[in-house]
């Protein structure tokens, strides 16, 4: 491993840090989902770097992991967006008193 800074390794770390910060500080559920996805992208970037560091061809195993991860993250996020829309529909019916 080189001691030279690796730009994409730094980018992965930045994505993870920023995603974590957003997850803690954001209140809006949609913004939180975005922050979680940014964190996830940092994790995916880490995995891709690990794959890249295999001498010769890129390692397909982390690639498969990332592909799986992307699909899972996106379907969960789509479900989250449906939740957010439902919350808004309910909030618009003013008579509703949830136990928030």
């Amino acid at each position, binding site marked *: 491993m080189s001691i030279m800074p690796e730009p994409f390794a730094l*980018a992965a*770390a930045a994505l993870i840090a*920023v995603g974590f910060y957003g997850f803690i500080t954001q209140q809006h559920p*949609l913004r939180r989902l975005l922050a979680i996805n940014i964190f996830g992208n940092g994790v995916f970037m880490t995995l891709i770097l690990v794959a890249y560091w295999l001498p010769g061809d890129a390692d*397909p195993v982390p690639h498969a992991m990332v592909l799986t991860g992307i699909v*899972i993250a996106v379907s969960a996020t789509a479900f989250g967006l449906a939740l957010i829309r439902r919350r808004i529909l309910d*909030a618009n019916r003013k008579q509703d008193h949830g136990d928030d």
Partner: protein
Amino acid sequence: MMVFDSLLALIIAALAWRCVTVRDLFQAIVTFIVLGLMLALSWTRLDAPDLALAEAGIGAGLLGVLLLSTWRVVRDAGPDQGEGPPPSPWVRTAAAVGSIALGTAFAVVLHTVEVDSDRAGGLALESLGEAGVEQPVTAVLLNFRSYDTLLELGVLLMALIGAVLLRSPLIHRPAAEDTGTESPLLPVLVTVFTPLVLLMGTFLVWAGAHSPGGAFQGGAVLAGAGVMLVLGGRLGGDAQVSLLLRALLILGVSVFTVIGLLLMPLEGAFMAYPEGLVYPLMVTIEFSLALSIGLTLLLLFTGTNGLRGAPA
């Protein structure tokens, strides 16, 4: 190339920062989409064109479209949607300190890690001959670690059932009734693009056996074609669900499981395939997966469990 990579990494970090900190929700979403594009670009630099395709199609593309549409709904609902109070300065400071520590730790670890080059992936590359497909990632997804892929299809199905339970679909009126979009060009775009997108999706699925692409990327592009039709007002979500549609939704997971279970007594292991049949089985599985994935992603976009055609 180093300069290119550094600039790209810098742009990625800056976009992420802006996406998280900008006030306006719309800007955050737009930034997120551009961030996805840049990630896809950076992954091509890291020898992962498969993932660049997936990120461009699913992570930035489909998710971006869904985010923009949901943003409309959020905005129409009014400015404040039951958000909690903003976090106190203490929380912010703690979060900042924590995230800097976390980021530094990751950066250090990623720069000092001694990677093991004798690994499963190397073995996968050596065993490609037995996998039935030449493309390493497809071989891992559909053969060496096919069980993961099968379970992942379950996740897609669950997310869809969850979205259906919520009854909060995205309903696009016919384009002609949408002020500002009654452009004569929208139907042209839809008419020209949809078949091309379908073609591209099919191509990517088929190409998955020997070049970057595969069921997920192809499926996402197929879903893109459906989303194009929805946005063009030709197709809409529907509460009524036909048996055929449901059958197509579970086609991938069923084909995968049933083939695995039927061959289990013969091969001695679940999801083991007999030598001569590997390639045809792979292709069958890949196409049924792509069809189910595409439809599921499309329905996750409309937020319904059914579809119906609408006059243009």
